[in-house]
């Protein structure tokens, strides 16, 4: 379809319904020194226009309050910040975001209070995680007949805050009666807060967690190792016929590249959500280009993605 006219995109003022720092809970609490003190935040917004039609993998472009509250970065944030939709409740008309506090934009968002109002554009992203045939992103590798969700085994692979969009995906896939397995990788015990929302999800067929540091209740290592094992056990996935299998992944680029390699090796379809710095978020500035294996070589994360067929991305050396 090429240029989208974004006719369906909403831009408006969304009230903050919830804004809280995710503190490590349970036995993990207090054990975070090993970790460079990452900080995660959950933000709830009243945005019925978004909640009613967001697809998994889509994002909002959020205007952050002016001024870096930490005082480090004069004149920033200036541009909007893209954040995946972490969860959506169409009945309540609310959406949730889950983000890591990294720089001035996320720090400003983390300082919001319930009742504050944010200027939001969304849902954006022409390519979402495909759940049914209709979802197939525009540039997806043609020729495959998408499996019916009901017969599907979906393996969701999330690294760190890349787990954020997978919650909504897991929920939607679960509702569509797919068999949903979640593989989560985090750096350390303190980051397990990112996995907690998945425990509350009804009907997951499996949830395996890997931490880079050795931690009780999680397997040591990288999430890609979990995927490798999962795929190697596939043909009879623990004695059950998995039916068609699709991998969905979001996380740091090296992880996605490895996921892509593993899926290709196993002959399994894989979809990855990638990130690029954005200015417009709507396909106008050509700023968020990602290099692909196709022609012309670049596609736009905001318009054609953020989700792409894994085989479409050029993971090549030059672009780390």
């Amino acid at each position, binding site marked *: 379809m*090429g*240029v*989208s*006219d*974004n*006719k*369906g*995109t909403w*831009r408006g003022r969304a009230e903050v319904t919830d804004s809280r720092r995710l503190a490590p809970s349970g036995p993990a609490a207090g054990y975070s020194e090993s970790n460079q003190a990452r900080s995660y935040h959950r933000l709830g917004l009243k945005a019925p226009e978004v909640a009613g039609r967001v697809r998994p993998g889509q994002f909002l472009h959020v*205007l952050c309050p002016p001024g870096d509250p930490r005082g480090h*970065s*004069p*004149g*920033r*944030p*200036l*541009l*909007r910040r893209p954040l995946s939709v972490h969860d959506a409740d169409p009945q309540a008309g609310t959406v949730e975001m889950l983000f890591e506090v990294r720089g001035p934009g996320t720090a400003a968002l983390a300082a919001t209070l319930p009742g504050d109002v944010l*200027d939001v*554009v969304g849902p954006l992203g022409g390519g979402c995680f495909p759940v049914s045939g209709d979802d197939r992103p525009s540039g997806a590798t043609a020729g495959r007949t998408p499996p019916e969700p009901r017969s599907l085994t979906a393996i969701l692979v999330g690294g760190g805050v890349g787990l954020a969009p997978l919650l909504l995906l897991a929920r939607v896939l679960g509702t569509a009666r797919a068999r949903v397995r979640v593989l989560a990788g985090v750096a350390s015990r303190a980051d397990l807060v990112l996995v907690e929302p998945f425990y509350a999800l009804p009907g997951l067929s499996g949830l395996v967690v890997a931490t880079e540091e050795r931690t009780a209740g999680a397997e040591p290592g990288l999430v890609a190792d979990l995927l490798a094992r999962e795929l190697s056990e596939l043909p009879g996935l623990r004695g059950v016929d998995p039916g068609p299998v699709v991998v969905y992944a979001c996380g740091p680029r090296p992880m996605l590249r490895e996921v892509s390699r593993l899926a290709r090796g196993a002959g399994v379809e894989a979809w990855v959500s990638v990130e*690029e*710095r*954005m*200015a*417009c*978020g*709507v*396909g*106008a*500035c*050509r*700023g*968020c*280009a*990602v*290099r692909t294996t196709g022609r*012309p*070589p*670049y596609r736009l994360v905001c*318009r054609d993605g953020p989700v792409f067929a894994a085989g479409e991305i050029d993971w090549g050396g*030059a*672009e780390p």
Partner: protein
Amino acid sequence: MRPDLGVAFAGLRMKTPVMTASGTFGYGREYAGLVNLSAIGAIVVKGVSLEPWEGNRPPRIIETASGMLNSIGLENPGLERFLEADLPWLVSSGAPVIVNVVGRTPTEYREVARALDGAPGVAALEANISCPNVEEGGLAFGADPEAAYGLVAAMREATSLPLIVKLTPNVTDVAGLAKRVVDAGADAVSLINTLVGMAIDVESGRAVLARGTGGLSGPAVKPVALAMVYRVAAAVSVPVIGMGGIWTGRDAVEFLMAGASAVAVGTATFVDPSAPVRIAGEIAEFLARRGYGWVGDLVGVANPGFRAGRPSRLADEDPVRNNQGGTLDD
């Protein structure tokens, strides 16, 4: 009485003096759901080249203090695709369309200009001789007054459309450069394109952008842009279109007072998709509060040396000349 925002100059007729800045508004369609295109003074599209251009390796964007660096590299689908798909859609949306033209050689610029000359709905051309993000073309022509002269002369031959030439700020003498492109036949000049800038990722010890440097835009550059518009408006006789960091109606009024007949809004649109319309509204509020009847009365008031072209009122213009595709609601 609602102040009159309409301006006519250099063969252009605009219902507000606020246009989009090339490269920040795509081909209009991308923003169609978010702003009323027909309420925009003129839509300047992303640079169009003879053949499709790939653009530069990512990352292409980085935020800086009150600004951003870009290294898009003029990615565009090329003339043919533009004429087939993008232009007809945009023309039907109702705003006057100005096509930003780029090329690797004067011949390419001329070819694009020639092909657009007859294209229905094109109100004017803007020659982009000032993009810092491509090896050839762009700044190579734009920073050398004589090369710029040759390029503009070649385009002038190829088109009877109003020809705007977009100037780079990365020069010692922008006024001298402006004079040369006017000598070569420019009907108007627009400025500024982006300032050459850079950011380094201290963790990797490498430039953030693959090409090292990029182009700086946004509020950070506004004082520089305003000073250059002021100088150029005191040096040339044609109308000037001002841009660089405009965020509010007050910023736009500064450019008009410095001597611009119209302004363009770029980076602000990324943050507020309705910026080109909002800013026109804020100019109208300013005019109303200060008792001005027509926006053209602001042009050059803060510039004692002002000698650039002035806009005229739309109503004063011969209606027959309004053949450039703009739908006007007055």
